[in-house]
């Protein structure tokens, strides 16, 4: 959540090209790209989707969080290539042999297809992650008519978390100077997190109680509440929403239709 945090702090004055795309359009883009990548088995097409989403990300900005997410998935994809290349149940044709171990073509292709899909999702979500701030999302969602309650549920954790992390740090310090027993077994380690977790949970829940009272005192559910304007001017939002939704419906419909055709 660190990147969104930084973005929200310096809400910069000059809008870049991606600021003219509204958050819902970006979310629908994630959906469409994911559906596209799931509707094909052709690796060439997948490579195309990866390139497009990667380009989107490059043209906006690359953040450490996205890189971290990518790094983790790339590692998993690698193990997938190994496991499936070795043991996939439909393996027949040997693709290559390393140190006398056979890697099969079918398994490698299967793993590559799955891996590509994952990458498309990560890259398209990464685009959303780096180009919208929490407050922009919150304001836009409220403008589109979502209730403050729902927005609070979805967004406030991003605001609470930094405070929780700070509290956790304070608690860890306070417990450290009271002494810590050496831990070896899983049981000991689990016990050792209780001195941190219990104060943290109680503090966090206490704050939730207080916030719940405070929000009501401050009149958040007053019917007169007016949504704030978003910082950016969005272009063609309704058109983008309709067309992207149509694409999504078509893709899902096509998938269902081809599945039904299998049985006919």
């Amino acid at each position, binding site marked *: 959540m660190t990147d969104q945090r930084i973005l*929200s*702090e310096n*809400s910069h004055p000059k809008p870049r090209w991606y600021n003219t795309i509204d958050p819902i359009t970006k979310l629908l883009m994630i959906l469409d790209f994911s559906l596209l990548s799931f509707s094909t088995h052709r690796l060439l097409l997948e490579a195309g989707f990866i390139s497009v989403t990667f380009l989107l990300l490059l043209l906006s900005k690359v953040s450490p969080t996205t890189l971290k997410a990518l790094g983790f998935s790339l590692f998993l994809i690698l193990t997938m290539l190994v496991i499936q290349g070795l043991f996939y149940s439909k393996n027949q044709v040997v693709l290559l042999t390393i140190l006398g171990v056979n890697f099969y073509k079918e398994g490698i292709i299967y793993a590559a297809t799955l891996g590509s899909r994952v990458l498309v999702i990560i890259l398209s979500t990464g685009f959303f992650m780096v180009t919208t*701030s*929490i*407050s922009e999302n*919150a304001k836009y969602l409220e403008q589109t008519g979502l209730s403050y309650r729902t*927005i*609070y549920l979805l*967004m*406030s954790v991003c*605001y*609470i978390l*930094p*405070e929780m992390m700070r509290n956790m740090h304070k608690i860890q310090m306070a417990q450290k100077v009271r002494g810590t027993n050496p831990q070896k077994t899983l049981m000991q380690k689990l016990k050792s997190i209780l001195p941190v977790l219990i104060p943290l949970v109680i503090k966090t829940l*206490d*704050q939730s*109680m*207080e*916030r*719940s*009272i*405070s*929000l*009501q*005192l*401050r*009149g*958040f559910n*007053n019917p*007169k*509440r*007016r949504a*704030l304007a978003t910082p950016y001017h969005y272009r063609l939002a309704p058109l983008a929403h309709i067309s992207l939704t149509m694409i999504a419906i078509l893709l899902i419909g096509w998938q269902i239709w081809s599945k039904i055709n299998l049985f006919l």
Partner: protein
Amino acid sequence: MVKNQSISLKNLSVKYPGSTAPQLKQMTAQADSGQIIGIVGNSRSGKTTLCQVLSGVIPTIISAKVSGTYTLNGHSPVDDWPAYNQLTGVVLQNPAGQLSGLADTVADEIAFDLINQGIQEAVITKRVNQAAMQMGLTAQLTQHPESLSGGQLQRLAIASAIATDPQILILDDPTSEMDPVGRQQFFNWLAGVKATTFIVSNEIDDLCEIADLIWVLQDGHLVAQGTPHQVFNHLSANWQLPAPTSFQLAQKMNWRLPTSDFPVNFQELREAIHATN
């Protein structure tokens, strides 16, 4: 003396479900609108519960058994709470828990109450700036609320409460995390406030300078009410409260007012010295 008793509590009792003893017991008290009422007492004496009743948090948000009658400035916190709530500004004990949870800047945070009331944006900006100025937060308006210190968070909570220009202010220990200079500034500001103000505080000296009335709570009972002068001239050891510094000094030096009472704030202290010499 004829009093316009527009704050009136009659036999007010409060008991949380599941607890054995009531938190407030048969409280009866009066005050005028526009007065500053200092609420003092030891911990567990019922100060926070009283603030919650006065703001309507009990029983509207926290369930509890409430009996007796109470009205503030002619309004009841129970009859139409949303309407009553618009008349009040409330600051709770823990400043961090009062943040809206969805504001990027101090300005947005102060504006929250105003946005909820559907006020025009131009008016909001003006009110936010005013409230921030009164609490000395103008330089922090564009900062993230997270970056504030405990004392600054308390001032932010107060700024948010006064931005809507409430008739009634309810402040539960609003200076606990402020440094001495900040606390002094706050009490100087409070002295000039027009709204009816209830303030819970351990700062006896400051309360005696600015409060019109002091309510002393002990174990859920209202054991004393009156002007700071009356209350501290009849201080009981059972209440476990300190006397104000002026009082302690005058008592040591035997500086008495013409009524032979001791002074409780600086102005009275000067009178007492004058009367003694």
